[in-house]
């Protein structure tokens, strides 16, 4: 069995950042990524990021991905990367089982960082399985990775940052965005994103949601309705909109199944997007040397995932006896950055959620 000190599951912003600080501390790691490329969801993000300089503010997500990958490639003797490899099992004795093509591999780790990110939530409505209905991330993959238009006329469901940003990216790709539907009475994401859309003529319909999708083999039109303050549709406000693509952006849910498999203490926290592990201030779960970073322990932004990754790599290395030359300074800096990112009104949900999972 292969023996590695640190196994990092997930080659997105959190996983790559953790590998970097671990390597800077002298600790070797294996980064496992199920897709063909590392960089996570950043490889689809064509927009400039928010935050501060330390989190690469004003740099486009696609370029942040390149920076994080380059950082990791600076440590070829300490960081091993396996792509097209899925973790299929995680065991209490820190054995990680992998599947690469048809080959089954077992790895014995001393410590594991789970940075598996999140997946998109689904919305239940009549005919929600028609071809032409996509998760928002799928639309981004089609447009920004493959250069394929998802459709010609689109409606976006959800006005959180993802829904607003992707609506704008659809327009950039030449797609006509007819409107954005938001079930709540106010827009969910940053108002600057909403303003960008509004000035381009995109209607953001708050208190609206989708009732039904219609089409023989593929989506042809939708029926939308207006909601009252108890989330029920109000009679007489139905509207029909002809579209060939519908984008569902109703939130993300942590991909925490490996944690459930290994039996860490978990809790369902709505503020954080779903089932998350209980963690201490160093991101360690209830099982010793099993750590988490990024969206898997609470849905936030890539900027937070990056800093959480840096922090977790640093503390794990320290625990295994590999102390970063600037440990104290960096530890404080990463904690400060996270506090800063979470201190505004948009950070309220995270702050409340993190209180609920503190060990």
């Amino acid at each position, binding site marked *: 069995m292969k023996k590695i000190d640190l196994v990092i599951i997930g080659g997105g912003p959190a996983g790559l950042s953790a590998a970097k600080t671990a390597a800077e501390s002298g600790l070797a790691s294996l980064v496992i990524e199920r897709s063909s490329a590392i960089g996570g969801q950043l490889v689809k993000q064509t927009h400039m990021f928010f935050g501060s300089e330390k989190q690469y503010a004003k740099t486009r997500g696609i370029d942040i991905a390149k920076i994080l990958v380059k950082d990791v490639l600076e440590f070829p003797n300490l960081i091993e990367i396996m792509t097209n490899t899925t973790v299929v099992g995680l065991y209490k004795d820190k054995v990680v089982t992998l599947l690469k093509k048809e080959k089954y591999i077992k790895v014995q780790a001393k410590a594991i960082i789970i940075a598996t990110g999140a997946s998109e939530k689904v919305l239940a409505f009549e005919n929600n399985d028609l071809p032409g209905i996509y998760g928002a991330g799928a639309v981004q993959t089609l447009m920004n990775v493959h250069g394929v238009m998802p459709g010609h006329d689109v409606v976006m469901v959800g006005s959180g940052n993802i829904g607003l940003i992707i609506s704008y990216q659809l327009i950039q790709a030449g797609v006509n965005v007819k409107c954005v539907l938001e079930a709540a009475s106010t827009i969910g994401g940053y108002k600057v994103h909403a*303003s960008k859309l*509004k000035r381009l003529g995109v209607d953001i319909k708050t208190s609206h949601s989708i009732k039904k999708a219609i089409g023989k083999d593929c989506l042809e039109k939708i029926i939308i309705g207006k909601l009252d303050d108890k989330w029920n549709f109000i009679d007489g406000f139905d509207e029909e909109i002809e579209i060939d693509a519908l984008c569902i952006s109703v939130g993300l849910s942590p991909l925490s199944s490996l944690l459930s498999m290994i039996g860490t203490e978990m809790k369902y926290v709505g503020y954080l997007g779903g089932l998350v592990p209980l963690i201490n201030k160093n991101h360690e779960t209830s099982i010793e040397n099993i750590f988490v970073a990024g969206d898997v322990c609470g849905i936030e932004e890539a900027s937070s995932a990056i800093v959480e990754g840096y922090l977790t790599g640093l503390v794990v290395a320290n625990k295994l006896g590999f102390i970063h030359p600037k440990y104290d300074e960096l530890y404080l800096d990463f904690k400060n950055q996270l506090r800063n990112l979470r201190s505004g009104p948009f950070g309220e949900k995270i702050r409340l959620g993190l209180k609920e999972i503190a060990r």
Partner: protein
Amino acid sequence: MLNINGVPSKTLILSRFPDEKYLNKPKAITECYERIPCNPCSTSCPFGAIHIGEDINTPPVVDFDKCTGCGICVYSCPGLAIFTVELLDELNARFKIPYELRPLPKVGETWDGVNRAGEFITKAYIEKVSLKEKQDRTALIQVIVPKKYIYEFITIRSKL
């Protein structure tokens, strides 16, 4: 009704503009009304004219004495929420707006000028189009519109 449809009220918009006497030179208007963790406008300004401070959730405040209207903040803002405005004469105003769509306007063309609700308000003359490498794919378009629209004009669209 910023929270409901993404359109700020006239009061909010005016709060971002300096006294008109400053506008004989171009000045940056930062339409960033919410507390969000973000500060590249402040760190990009070569003149130290935009203040945010330690708490990066603080909305930016422009020092109009220091601001030269260079436009660096315009293409540095991840929310495309900044533009510059200048009063040219009795009739016209000059805007520098961020632009990330195709096709790009061409100098000498006349496009439709729209307000924050996306409604047509005036014809807009394209005076200059700038897309340098340091702008990282956010073009800066210099547009001339009638002065009476300075609190309404926000961007251009090719054909409505």
